[in-house]
């Protein structure tokens, strides 16, 4: 009896130790600025003028798992100078410099500004609080959704921790460092299918596309020739069909439209095809094709990777398809018509008789019985 009691006690102690160990991994960030005094309340929030409920509730244990877990609030929320703070006007922009985090390579305050500037100069570039047509463009967080759960951020393998802690001493540091680097070394890009889906959220939004086409027309601005049907025409191509099926070797949007010299930079500096620096510009196209189609020549670069049968886009194909449809319909109608005509009019041959005495029913002909007149 006594033994069992002590067992229970030991188990409880072991459980507590496990809990403490586990919670140490997802350590809550240190609220040195006192933001949680208010933002720890779940009902913290407001309803905007547009009727949208905005929650300002912060869960430290969740925030402590995000990529920004080491950044103090006011490094990004720079407008906040005192507590309680005034209503926020612009809010967080991704090109802000963090004062608390130093770039280990340069020693300067860390910032997303370099890549933000690249993005800002691209066709997708916009300010955070953009209005009008610019508001349709993606801001950083449109694509960078930073999912909280990332399978690549699991606990590091034991033998790695065991090795690192010998010099780096702190297990938490090792875990965080492992998570940070392993996530970035492993492939965490979207799959080709996901990339097409991401681009499609805007480029396949009919209303949005129509808005831009109309505005460009009114301003006399040029738009990409395939702008209005970029996604539909992509799915018409072999690239699109194969990508739709999860085939990863076929080109997705970024394979052609982003500069391949540095993929991660290239996807941020997408330019319209009329820009000479764009990989799909007429002068660059061959080089872009050759990245996969190694034996492609200049003629090959003339092929249309966004084929359509629209009259405005490709009159040749439009009329060719029209002719094909007519031929198909005429041939099938003609042949089926002839077959029906033959069957109907050959009743006088005695179709019923042919069925009864037809020669292909059995091995033995049944013609022997009666003489037909």
């Amino acid at each position, binding site marked *: 009896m006594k033994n069992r009691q002590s067992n229970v006690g030991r188990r409880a102690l072991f459980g507590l130790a496990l809990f403490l160990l586990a919670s140490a991994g997802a350590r809550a960030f240190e609220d040195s600025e006192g933001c949680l005094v208010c933002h720890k309340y779940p009902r913290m929030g407001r309803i905007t003028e547009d009727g949208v409920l905005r929650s300002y509730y912060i869960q430290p244990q969740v925030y402590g798992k995000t990529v920004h877990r080491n950044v103090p609030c006011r490094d990004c929320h720079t407008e906040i100078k005192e507590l309680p703070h005034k209503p926020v006007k612009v809010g967080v922009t991704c090109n802000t410099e963090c004062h608390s985090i130093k770039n280990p390579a340069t020693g300067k305050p860390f910032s997303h500004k370099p890549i933000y500037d690249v993005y800002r100069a691209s066709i997708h570039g916009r300010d955070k609080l953009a209005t009008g047509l610019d508001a349709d463009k993606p801001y950083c967080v449109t694509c960078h959704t930073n999912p909280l759960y990332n399978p690549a951020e699991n606990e590091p393998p034991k033998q790695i921790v065991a090795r690192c802690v010998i010099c780096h001493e702190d297990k938490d540091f090792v875990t965080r460092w492992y998570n940070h680097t392993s996530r970035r070394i492993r492939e965490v890009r979207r799959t080709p299918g996901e990339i097409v889906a991401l681009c499609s959220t805007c480029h396949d939004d009919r209303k949005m596309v129509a808005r831009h086409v109309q505005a460009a027309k009114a301003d006399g601005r040029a738009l990409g020739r395939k702008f209005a049907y970029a996604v539909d025409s992509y*799915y018409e191509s*072999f690239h699109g*069909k*194969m990508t*739709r*099926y*999860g*085939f990863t070797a076929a080109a997705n949007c970024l394979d052609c439209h982003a500069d391949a010299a540095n993929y991660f930079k290239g996807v941020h500096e997408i330019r319209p095809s009329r820009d000479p620096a764009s990989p799909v510009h007429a002068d660059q196209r061959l080089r872009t094709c050759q990245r996969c*189609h190694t*034996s*492609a*020549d*200049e*003629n*090959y670069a*003339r*092929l*249309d990777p966004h*084929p359509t*049968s629209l009259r405005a886009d*490709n009159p*040749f*194909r439009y009329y*060719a*398809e029209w002719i*094909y*449809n007519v*031929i*198909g319909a005429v*041939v*099938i109608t003609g*042949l*089926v018509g002839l*077959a029906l*005509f*033959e*069957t109907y*009019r*050959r009743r*006088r*041959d*005695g*179709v019923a*008789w*042919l*069925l009864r*005495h*037809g*020669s*292909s*029913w*059995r*091995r*033995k*002909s049944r*013609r*022997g019985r009666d*003489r*037909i*007149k």
Partner: protein
Amino acid sequence: MKLSKPARDVLETSLRQNRIDARERKEIEALIALLPADRVLFYKNVVSNPLGDLYRYSIHIRIQHMLIFVTFLTLAFTGLPIHFFDSFWAGPLNALLGGVSVTRIIHRTIAVIMILAMAYHVLTLTLGTLARLKAGTFDLRRTIVPLPKDIRDFKEDLLYFSGKRGQRPEMDKFNYKQKIHYFAAGFGNTVMVVSGSTFLFPELWAAMLPAGMVAHWQELMRLSHPHEALLALLVIAFWHWYNVHLAPGRFPMQWTFLTGKITREHQIEEHFLEYLRNLVEQPQERQALLGMLESRELAGGPPADEGVP
């Protein structure tokens, strides 16, 4: 039966080519004179083996038919879910085959087999024709080559179907339907092979064609491949299968594609000119026919009314 001029021509050619002597010729002429002028009465009363009585297709042609039969359907089965990728059945069909990466490999492999079957066919035709030319038994009317007579046959068949003629035309070994179908299939297969090759080797085609044509050619081929495939599938489903399974007198099926033989009644009904050649070439057929004519009291008979049925 008094032979029409085209039938007489065919008979004379066959007699000459087979070096038929005067005695045998007399026998053949006597037999033909006994044939009932009404060919409907004639074909309906002959005794036929459902599996076929008279030689029609060599083993090579039968193997080629089997090869095209199997490859065509497999190509359609694997090609449709690639083209109609966004329809509800395409996903499951692809999954059934092991995913689109497998489907396309199957499609291409089978395509190679189909191309080989086509080459085999061309080789058979070429060597067969050369052999016949050498033996002096070649007759253009006996081949699949379309001739002006086919237009006449088509017209007369339509008149028969519409009740304005009493007899179907006297057609040759390959009638107008078979010639249309054969050349449609031959043309279709060629289109499929050429357009398929532009998908598989786009760089090669781009390098071969003049710059102004490259894009148009690729567009045209992208249209041609699925359109031709669908057309071929519909023609096979509605036209070929109708003619070999459902047309009056053919139900449930003809065995010719397996046995290589055609039934006597079918030969007389739709390929009368070829039947005349059979009478010249096969003495045993003459004997069998004579017996049938006597036992069924078919010999002679009044001349057929070619006008009103």
